[in-house]
C-alpha cells in the first residue's frame, strides 16, 4: 500500500473508531499476524518475515463495523475479523495485509432472559466472562471449550466451536437462535430469535462456520440453561477402544445423554491420561459425566453404568472422573517438563497437529485405525513420533475422533514445512476416504481450506457462488475456507 493511500485509509479509520482504536505499531501488527498458528510461528523462529496487516482496528459498535466494511469495500482492501486469537488453523491471519478487525471491544452482554432462557450478546464477549455472569444468575451456556479463557462468542460462531459439554448442550450451531451480521458490502443482516421457523433455509447457518468470509457477526441471541442441580463424573476403564465405542453408541442410542464423554485410546490412556491425571491401568479410559436434576442424573448414570459393564467396562468410581473435570485444562499449560517439546515444535524443529474429524458409527473404527496405520507407516516410523486419539462430542449417529500426532526426529536436511504439509494432506485424505469430514470444531482456516473442493466435490460451487454474491470484491478473510485468495 503506498504512503498516500495508507495515510488516507488511516485517516478514515481514525475518523470512524477514534485514534485509540486504530493500532499501527509494527510489533503489534506482527503479533496479530502470528497468533497461535504453527506455520507463522515457525517462520518467525526461522527469521522469515510474516505477512502483516496494515491496521488493527477495534470497533465498538455495529455502526462502526458497517462503516469500516463500506470503506474497505470501496478501497478494495482485505478485512480479517479477529476474536480471541486462539485459532491454530490460520483462519485469522492477514495474509493479504489490510485491516485486522479485532471485535473484542464489542463485549456487552445486552440481556439475560431467564424466562425464555436466552442471552443476547455482542460478538466480542469472552466466553468465560459470559459463563461467569450466567453462573452468577443461576444459568449456564453449556459451552466450556479449552479456549474458554481467551476466545469470544464471535470466534466460536465463526468456527462452529464445540465445548467439553457438547454431547448434551450441543455445538455452537445448536446454541444460536439469532444473529446480527454486517455483510461485506455494509448491509445489516439479521434473523429472528424464534426457536422454530419454516421461512426458507436456516440462514443463521450461512454465517455459523463461515470463518468471517461472508460477514462479520456483531450480535447473537444464544440459548442458555438453568444451572444443573447436580453434575458428576466417573471414570470407566474398557479393555479396548472397540468396547468403549460400543458402550457409548448404545448409551447415546438409548437416549441417555451424558453431558460429557471422552474415550481415550489405549495409547493416550497409557501416556497423557496417566501423566496428567495419574490414572493408571491398561485399556481405554472413558470419563463420563451427567448433569441436571438429581433424580435424572441418578437414573442416567445408573443406566449408563449398566451398559458400560455389559461391554466390559470397569467402573473406577467418581474420583478419577471428578479429578479429570477439576484438572481438565491443566495439560494445556506448558510446564518446565513439556517446554522442551514446545520449544522444538514452535521453534520449527518438530511438527505436530490435531486432525479432528467426525463420522458415523459404522465407519468410525475403520477411520481411526486407518489414520493410525497411515501415520505410523508413512511418517511415524521414519521420523519417530507419537499418535494417539480420543473420541469425544458424541451423537446418536456418530462421534468425533480427535487424533493428535507428533514427529520429533525430522532430519535437518529435510524441509520441515514441506513434511508438515505432507502429513496434513495425508491425514486429511485418509479421513475423507473413510467417510470423515475435514474438521469437527477448529474450523478450516487456511490450513485445510484447500481440501474443501475434495470434501464437497461439485457442491463446493454453491459456497463459492454465495461468496461471490455477498462479497464481490473478496475483501472478507480472503484465502480462508478454500474460497480463494487475492
Amino acid at each position, binding site marked *: 500500500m503506498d504512503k498516500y493511500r495508507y495515510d488516507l485509509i488511516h485517516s478514515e479509520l481514525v475518523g470512524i473508531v477514534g485514534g485509540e482504536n486504530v493500532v499501527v505499531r509494527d510489533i503489534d501488527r506482527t503479533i496479530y499476524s502470528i497468533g497461535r498458528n504453527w506455520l507463522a510461528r515457525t517462520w*518467525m523462529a526461522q527469521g522469515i518475515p510474516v505477512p502483516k496487516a496494515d491496521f488493527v482496528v477495534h470497533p465498538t459498535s455495529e455502526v462502526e463495523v458497517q462503516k469500516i466494511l463500506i470503506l474497505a469495500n470501496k478501497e478494495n482492501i482485505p478485512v480479517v475479523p479477529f476474536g480471541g486469537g486462539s485459532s491454530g488453523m490460520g483462519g485469522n491471519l492477514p495474509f493479504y495485509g489490510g485491516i485486522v478487525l*479485532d471485535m473484542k471491544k464489542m463485549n456487552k452482554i445486552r440481556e439475560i432472559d431467564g424466562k425464555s432462557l436466552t442471552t443476547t450478546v455482542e460478538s466480542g464477549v469472552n466466553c468465560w466472562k459470559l459463563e461467569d455472569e450466567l453462573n452468577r444468575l443461576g444459568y449456564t451456556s453449556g459451552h466450556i471449550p479449552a479456549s474458554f479463557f*481467551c476466545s469470544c462468542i464471535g470466534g466460536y460462531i465463526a468456527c462452529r466451536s464445540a465445548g467439553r459439554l457438547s454431547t448434551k448442550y450441543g455445538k455452537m450451531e445448536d446454541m444460536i437462535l439469532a444473529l446480527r451480521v454486517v455483510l461485506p458490502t455494509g448491509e445489516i443482516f439479521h434473523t429472528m430469535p424464534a426457536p422454530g421457523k419454516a421461512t426458507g433455509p436456516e440462514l443463521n447457518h450461512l454465517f455459523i462456520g463461515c470463518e468471517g468470509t461472508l460477514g462479520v457477526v456483531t450480535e447473537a441471541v444464544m440459548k442458555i440453561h438453568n444451572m444443573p442441580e447436580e453434575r458428576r463424573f466417573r471414570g470407566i476403564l474398557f479393555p479396548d477402544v472397540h468396547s468403549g465405542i460400543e458402550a457409548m453408541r448404545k448409551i447415546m442410542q438409548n437416549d441417555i445423554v451424558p453431558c460429557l464423554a471422552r474415550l481415550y485410546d489405549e495409547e493416550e490412556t497409557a501416556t497423557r491420561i496417566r501423566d496428567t491425571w495419574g490414572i493408571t491401568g491398561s485399556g481405554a479410559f472413558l470419563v463420563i459425566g451427567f448433569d441436571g436434576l438429581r433424580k435424572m442424573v441418578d437414573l442416567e448414570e445408573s443406566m449408563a453404568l449398566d451398559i458400560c459393564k455389559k461391554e466390559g467396562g470397569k467402573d473406577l468410581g467418581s474420583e478419577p472422573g471428578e479429578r479429570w473435570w477439576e484438572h481438565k485444562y491443566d495439560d494445556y499449560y506448558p510446564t518446565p517438563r513439556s517446554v522442551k517439546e514446545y520449544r522444538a515444535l514452535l521453534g520449527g524443529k518438530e511438527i505436530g497437529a490435531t486432525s479432528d474429524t467426525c463420522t458415523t458409527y459404522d465407519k468410525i473404527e475403520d477411520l481411526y485405525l486407518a489414520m493410525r496405520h497411515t501415520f505410523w507407516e508413512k511418517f511415524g516410523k521414519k521420523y519417530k513420533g507419537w499418535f494417539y486419539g480420543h473420541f469425544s462430542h458424541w451423537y446418536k449417529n456418530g462421534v468425533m475422533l480427535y487424533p493428535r500426532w507428533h514427529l520429533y526426529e525430522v532430519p535437518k536436511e529435510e524441509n520441515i514445512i514441506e513434511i508438515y504439509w505432507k502429513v496434513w494432506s495425508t491425514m486429511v485424505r485418509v479421513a475423507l476416504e473413510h467417510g470423515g469430514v475435514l474438521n469437527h470444531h477448529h474450523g478450516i482456516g487456511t490450513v485445510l481450506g484447500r481440501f474443501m473442493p475434495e470434501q464437497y466435490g461439485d457442491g463446493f460451487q454453491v459456497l463459492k457462488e454465495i461468496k461471490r454474491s455477498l462479497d464481490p470484491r473478496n475483501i472478507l478473510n480472503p484465502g480462508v475456507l478454500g474460497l480463494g485468495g487475492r
Partner: protein
Amino acid sequence: MHIGEISDKIEICAYCPLMCQDICTVFSETKIQSRCPTMQQYILWLILNGREKYSREIAEIMYECCCGCLLCQSWCATNQDVPEKVRAARKDIVELDLAPKSVMDLNQNTLEFHNPYKEPHSDRFRDIARRKWHRRGDAEILYFVGCTTAYRQPKIADAVIAILEHANLNYDLMNGEEWCCGLPQWELGLEKTAKTLAEHNSTHINSSNHKIVLTSCPECLYALKKVYPSLGFPINAGIYHVSEYIGSLVKDGNLALKRSFDRTITYHDPCYLGRHAKVFDAPRQVIKNIRGIDFVEMRWIKDKAYCCGGNEGFAIIHPELSATIGGKVIEEAEKAGGEALVTACPLCKELLTKHATDKNIELYDLAELVEQLL
C-alpha cells in the same frame, strides 16, 4: 535480573495457548493482543531468539502490559509469575535507555523528592500533623506511612495513629527520614533507585530498636518484607500490615470496636496485601468483629479478586488506564449488595473513589472504619 536469566520461564508463557488472556487485568481493558501475558512474553521470546530487538515500541508495550496485580498467577496451572518476567524486561529497557519518558520522570522525581508523586519531601507528614502525636524515640512500633498514604490519603494515617493512641501503644514515625519504599521503582525496572531507597530506609529502621514495623500500604509492606532482602537490605524487625496488627489487637481484647455500623459491607482484597503477601483473613476478621454489619463477599475474592487499577508505578505512568480498571471492583461490590466497600490500601482507595461515588457506595480504608468505631 535480565530476561536472559529467566529465558526458561519466559518460554513457558510464550508457548501457552493464551490460557490467562481474559483473566489479565490490563488485557481485559485494552483488548490488544500484545498486552496479554502470552503474547507479551512471546515478544520477549523473539528478543531472546534474536528475531526482535528492544525498541521504543516494545518498551511502551512492556510498560503498559502489566500492572503487577498477579491475577494471572492465581489462575495458572503452573503458577507462573508474569510480573517477575515483565520486571526483568523493564530492567533491560532501563539499562538500554529506552524507557518511556514517564518512567524516567518518575525516577527523577523519586531521586529529587524521595517520592514518585513529585511532592515536596518537607510536606510528607504535613497533612497528618494535625493530630497530636505521642511518639517515643524508644518505641516498640515504627509506623511506615508510605507515599500514597502521606500525599494522597492522609486520613488513613490519621486513623492509624488514632488507633495506636487509643490502644495506648508506643510508636514512632521516621519523620524526615522516611523515603519512598521503592516498590514502584522496583516494579518499573529502576532497580538502582530501588536499591538506593531500600538502603536508606533499612539503614534508618535498623539503626533504631523498633521491634515492629507497621505499614498501611500493602506495597510498602511487600517492599520492606520481600523486596528489601532480595536487594540485600533486610529489615531487622517484624513487618506487618496495619490490618494484621489491628486484627491481633482486636483478637487479644486490646482494642474494642464499641460502636455499631449498620451497613452491608463487602471487602476488596488489595493485590499486594492479598495475592502478593498472602494476607487474606486478617482484614475480614476485623470486619466481622464490627457490630451491626452484614458482611457479604463479592463473587471473586482473595487470590482471585479483581485489581483496583494496578500498582503505584503503573498508576502514575498510566493514570487513565489505571483509573478505568477499578470500575469492575465497584460493579462487583454493587452486585454483591454492598452498601459500603472496605479495602486496606491507600492506592485502592485512591483509585476506587470516583467509581464508588458514581455508584453511591461508601468507601473506607479498614483503619478509617475502625477509627470511627472506637
